[in-house]
């Protein structure tokens, strides 16, 4: 065994270390002046010193910037390392002492912390090093383990060191601090086959309850299972119950949405079918090619190509291990388009996060919960690292903050895919086709992820659920995408699906629902030995897809995959007997009828209630100067600039961007929606936007849902799109819907989806829900706010008609399209004053649909110079953003704004969040044409763009109520997240 340390030459600054210094200062520990990071590699091998030197010189260390040292401990590692550390003082750019030296003379000015991954957690770097060593001609490296050693300079006591460890360096779910004497390469555990049967036929009710809890079944479900096996005259095996648990989980089957729900006098049989899916069915758009049946919804793009779109959540894993949870969230959703039709190329990502505010007090943090700042940073890094490596541009997203997301952060990841239109339909396998598993190997990662995702988090979750955290390796997925699309184009498989939640159990189980399948679990390639047949079947190891391959294509397919270093393994065959048969080394371990597996789940009955909550009506007076109020809203967590996040995503890869997330004179203004050109030699584009506003849901989830749809559509219109060909996705994240009031709120939101989307003629094409987002601690329950994310894609005939939101030219006219109501309930303005209010923004879809269509026509004719939708912070925020993004001032007269009802306060007019409104910049020479197209209703000229670098607003009584330099406004907006 060899230990290698690689570190930057002492005179060079350490960027990783300096980043940590900033993070440590953020924790309130200001004594740390410097941090340097040493990369540690343990090689399980017996190599001569000159070979080790070769590995260091030619692989692990950069000869220009780094130094290295290696060490081969004598065979009795433990004793020797304990007795003497060979690394003391001679390696470090500054003197430091080991962490075990507490008993002796401790140098309090410098500290060292060494961190490594836990056993069983795969570090992707290890595979790369093994491969690269072989490239160098070095054989006999049996295993590699990496660690990081942090050298901290500055006065720190033990408590501070522990804080730094716990809050920044170590996540106990995947990592630990190395006690040097304990290091060793773990031996692979062996597995000895025993068929596990679960005796459910002989159990009484209390014992049955225990089985229900173990597998996450409801009482009715277990009754159905008992009845089934009684008929079979045998007990189920563990893997059969696991299969049923996965297949019937909320995550996989959306049982709440499909339940029979009673809300007062109304009886709803399947909420999904009677609201979301009903929109699509009734609109019956010919361009909807494949909806609600595949891993993503598919629409026509240009007659030759099709687009598919899916947004997933990865909330629970991100709560526990933000980096890995979010990274695998990306990995998972990217495999959705890849597993749609016969496979789509992922071409765009969108990510929406909901966190508790970054300044959440540490002392109020529930036990077992990571601080929101850490979750935020970890999630951002996980998303960026995975998506950037896959080469998928992240062009759209949003980040929202509310204290109630503290224990249940929400991480929505979405991917848009492009595939030939003739491959858009879900494939069909024939009996005799082989089940081929492709991509990464199977390990213990993510066991029980689905049942974990569907259950409530508790204080213990962060310690007990570690095996539910999947570990991602984006390069394995990238290889898989590259080769799969080649196999698709050669027509080597008849059907494809992704291995996501529920692993093989869900993927193969669903694929074979109509035919039947026989799977030989011992043929599944494993990362390491020791997995039981059940673990193999339910493992959620990442970067795997399942294919149905005709027997005559199998060799060509396996060879093709091998040519780019990707494993493809036949693990079973499709049958015609409509049974799921699982075998392990010749033993039958599972045998279920497909009819029972997919049709045997009893439809639950649920009670729902809905009663609107009433909040205190705000009673504060209008502030004399509204500049202060505007600055405060611009600097709020929800409204402030997210540039820090956006810049760390690659939004230019694939060379398709037309309208980027950051726009304007200095490339830092907040664009409304992103536009890409999916087919590089075509002028057609696709617009991607989203709408989300959980604050309105506190007042009425119906209007929250309506507002989310309106917002997503507004953004499409604002950038120059039309309502002509727009498709929607829904993602519901809710508290515990077993509570009737939570379920009632869900029903109302879903009803709004039907009512509003039908009139806008925008069909839903896919969706997902994540329920039970609540957290219990000390007997209290924290539920997340009702959160509905609406994601939209719109087809644009000509990308050259795109419009950005930044003001372009002094003396241009500023119009408002849409009427302003006294709708500040749930607004950012009320929030800054500590109120919720009751007057939630509503939507009049008949009216707005006309307005949006007219505005599209005006944009298409080139009459619109800039357009921005009014959302959080209303006209005030939209105006400020347009001004500082364009580097131009504006003068606005509130008395010209069209009011839908009398409003006697300037602040309410300026900050009302009424829906369906746009601020539009029009050149003076286009005034008449623009006004003619828009008609007189709901249109008003309210001011001009100026070259004054000043935003001036005159009140209803024509007095100036707001005058602020653009620099101040922009600074307030950029400051909070300038990390």
């Amino acid at each position, binding site marked *: 065994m060899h230990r290698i340390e690689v570190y930057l030459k002492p005179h060079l600054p350490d960027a990783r270390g300096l980043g940590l210094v900033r993070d440590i200062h953020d924790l309130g520990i200001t004594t740390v002046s410097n941090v340097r990071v040493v990369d540690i590699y343990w090689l399980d091998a017996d190599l001569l010193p000159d070979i080790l030197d070769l590995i260091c010189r030619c692989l692990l260390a950069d000869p220009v910037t780094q130094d290295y040292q290696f060490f081969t401990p004598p065979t009795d590692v433990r004793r020797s390392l304990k007795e003497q550390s060979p690394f003391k003082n001679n390696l470090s750019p500054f003197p430091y002492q080991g962490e075990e030296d507490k008993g002796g003379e401790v140098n309090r000015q410098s500290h060292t912390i060494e961190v490594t991954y836990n056993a069983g957690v795969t570090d992707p770097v290890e595979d790369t090093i093994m491969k690269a060593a072989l*490239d160098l001609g070095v054989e006999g490296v049996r295993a590699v383990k990496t660690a990081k050693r942090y050298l901290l300079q500055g006065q720190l006591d033990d408590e501070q060191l522990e804080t730094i460890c716990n809050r920044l360096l170590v996540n106990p779910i995947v990592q630990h601090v190395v006690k040097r004497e304990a290091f060793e390469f773990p031996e692979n555990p062996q597995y000895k086959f025993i068929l596990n049967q679960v005796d459910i036929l002989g159990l009484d009710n209390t014992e049955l309850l225990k089985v229900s809890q173990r597998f996450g079944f409801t009482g009715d479900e277990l009754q159905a299972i008992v009845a089934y096996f009684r008929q079979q005259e045998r007990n189920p095996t563990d893997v059969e119950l696991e299969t049923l648990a996965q297949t019937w989980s909320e995550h996989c089957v959306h049982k709440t949405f499909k339940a029979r729900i009673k809300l007062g006098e109304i009886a709803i049989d399947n909420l999904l079918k009677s609201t979301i899916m009903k929109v699509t069915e009734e609109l019956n758009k010919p361009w909807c090619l494949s909806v609600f049946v595949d891993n993503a919804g598919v629409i026509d793009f240009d007659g030759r190509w099709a687009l598919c779109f899916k947004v997933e959540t990865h909330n629970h894993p991100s709560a526990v291990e933000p980096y890995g949870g979010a990274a695998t969230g990306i990995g998972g959703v990217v495999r959705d388009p890849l597993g749609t039709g016969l496979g789509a190329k992922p071409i765009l990502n969108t990510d929406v996060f909901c966190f508790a505010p970054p300044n959440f007090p540490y002392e109020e943090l529930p036990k077992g919960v990571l601080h929101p700042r850490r979750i935020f940073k970890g999630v951002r890094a996980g998303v960026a690292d995975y998506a950037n*490596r896959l*080469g998928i541009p992240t062009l759209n997203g949003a980040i929202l903050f509310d204290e109630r997301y503290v224990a249940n952060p929400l991480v929505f990841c979405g991917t848009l895919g492009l595939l030939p239109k003739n491959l858009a339909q879900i494939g069909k396998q024939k009996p005799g086709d082989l089940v081929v598993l492709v991509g990464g190997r199977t390990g213990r990662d993510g066991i029980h992820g689905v049942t974990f995702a569907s259950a409530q988090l508790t204080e213990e979750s962060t310690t007990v659920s570690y095996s539910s955290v999947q570990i991602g390796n984006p390069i394995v997925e990238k290889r898989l995408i590259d080769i799969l699309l080649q196999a698709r184009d050669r027509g080597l498989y008849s059907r494809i699906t992704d291995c996501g939640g529920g692993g093989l159990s869900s993927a193969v189980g669903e694929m074979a629902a109509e035919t039947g399948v026989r799977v030989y679990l011992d043929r599944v390639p494993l990362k390491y030995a020791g997995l039981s047949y059940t673990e193999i079947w339910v493992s959620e190891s990442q970067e795997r897809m399942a294919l149905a391959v005709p027997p005559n294509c199998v060799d060509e397919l396996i060879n093709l995959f091998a040519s780019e270093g990707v494993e493809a393994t036949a693990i079973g065959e499709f049958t015609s007997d409509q049974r799921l048969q699982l075998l392990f080394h010749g033993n039958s371990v599972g045998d279920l009828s497909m009819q029972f597996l997919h049709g045997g789940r009893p439809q639950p009955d649920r009670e729902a209630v809905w009663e609107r909550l009433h909040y205190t009506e705000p009673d504060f007076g209008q502030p004399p100067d509204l500049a202060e109020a505007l600055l405060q809203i611009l600097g709020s967590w929800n409204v402030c600039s997210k540039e820090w996040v956006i810049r760390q995503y690659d939004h230019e890869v694939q060379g398709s961007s037309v309208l980027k997330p950051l726009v304007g004179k200095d490339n830092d203004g907040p664009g409304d929606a992103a536009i890409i050109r999916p087919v590089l030699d075509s002028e057609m584009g696709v617009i991607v936007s989203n709408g989300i506003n959980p604050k309105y849901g506190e007042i009425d989830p119906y209007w929250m849902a309506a507002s989310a749809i309106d917002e997503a559509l507004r953004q499409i219109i604002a950038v120059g799109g039309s309502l002509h060909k727009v498709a929607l996705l829904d993602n519901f994240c809710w508290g515990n819907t077993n509570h009737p009031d939570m379920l009632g709120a869900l029903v109302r939101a879903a009803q709004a989806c039907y009512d509003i989307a039908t009139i806008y003629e925008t069909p839903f094409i896919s969706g997902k829900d994540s329920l039970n987002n609540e957290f219990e601690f000390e007997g209290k329950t924290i539920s997340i706010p009702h959160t509905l994310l609406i994601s939209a894609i719109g087809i644009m005939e000509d990308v050259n008609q795109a419009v950005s939101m930044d003001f372009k030219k002094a003396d241009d006219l500023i119009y408002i399209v849409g009427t302003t109501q006294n709708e500040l309930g749930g607004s950012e303005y009320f929030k800054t004053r500590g109120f919720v209010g009751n007057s939630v923004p509503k939507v009049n879809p008949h009216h707005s649909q006309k307005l949006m269509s007219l505005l599209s026509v005006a944009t298409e004719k080139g009459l619109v110079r800039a357009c921005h939708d009014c959302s959080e912070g209303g006209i005030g925020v939209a105006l400020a953003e347009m001004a500082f993004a364009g580097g131009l001032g504006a003068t606005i007269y509130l008395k010209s704004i069209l009011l839908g009802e009398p409003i006697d306060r300037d602040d309410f007019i300026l900050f009302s969040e009424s829906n369906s409104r746009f601020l539009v910049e029009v050149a003076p020479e286009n005034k008449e044409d623009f006004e003619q197209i828009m008609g007189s209703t709901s249109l008003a000229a309210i001011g001009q763009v100026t070259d004054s670098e000043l935003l001036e607003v005159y009140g209803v009584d024509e007095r100036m109520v707001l005058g602020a330099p653009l620099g101040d406004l922009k600074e307030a907006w950029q400051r909070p997240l300038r990390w």
Partner: protein
Amino acid sequence: MSKVRTLIIRAPGTNCDAETAFAFQQTGAIVSSVHVNQLIRREKRLSDYQIMVVPGGFTYGDDIAAGKVLANELRLKLGEDIQRFIENGGLILGICNGFQVLTKAGILPGSSNGGSPLLTMVANDSGKFECRWVHLLVNKESPCVFTRGIDTMYLPVAHAEGKVVADPEVLPQLNTVLYYTDEKGDNKAGYPYNPNGSVWNIAGICDSTGRVFALMPHPERHLRGTQHPQWTRQGAKQYGDGFQIFLNAVNWAKSL
């Protein structure tokens, strides 16, 4: 005259191959996207092409250091082929990860001391991956054939390890092709104009022949006017600033 044949090398984690291929196709070149394994197995031969490109991405995950593993693969398994390719007048272009690969393989700056690299790229001073647009000034003194007739360019960068570091003795001998500047053309401008802290604001270099060129910014992401981040303000030109790089390469190769 026969068409110019361009080879785009793919490896696990390459992710700018499609748009780089598109850029060359727009110039009328014939483009083959080839996995590095195919070259190593001699299923494809470098000598069949006039232009070799190492595109952007995160080859082998950028594990250990950006571009390191592919650099070793090229150096150890294709080193002689590449040497001969350069001697025979071929052109080599490295973009972003390709720059990291070419320097770590010792192909750039074109070392004469037996393979030990003289120049490397390390983590950005900001400590972050950043995607942003940068102003570039072309060094008119450089022998680079890719940048002929170009004075300035506006291109995006997207990387975490783009800071050029070199031995002080090496610096004066470098053939620097591109400098980061501010919008006025000042090549001493600091962050964010110099997005990574590169010494001397170096954004791209070439070898002494001018035919081996690498840069951190992405010319393939600015081929047409609507890719410019300001096009909705300034109007869209037909071609983006990056297109000329590909056109120059292909025109040069046509004369081979």
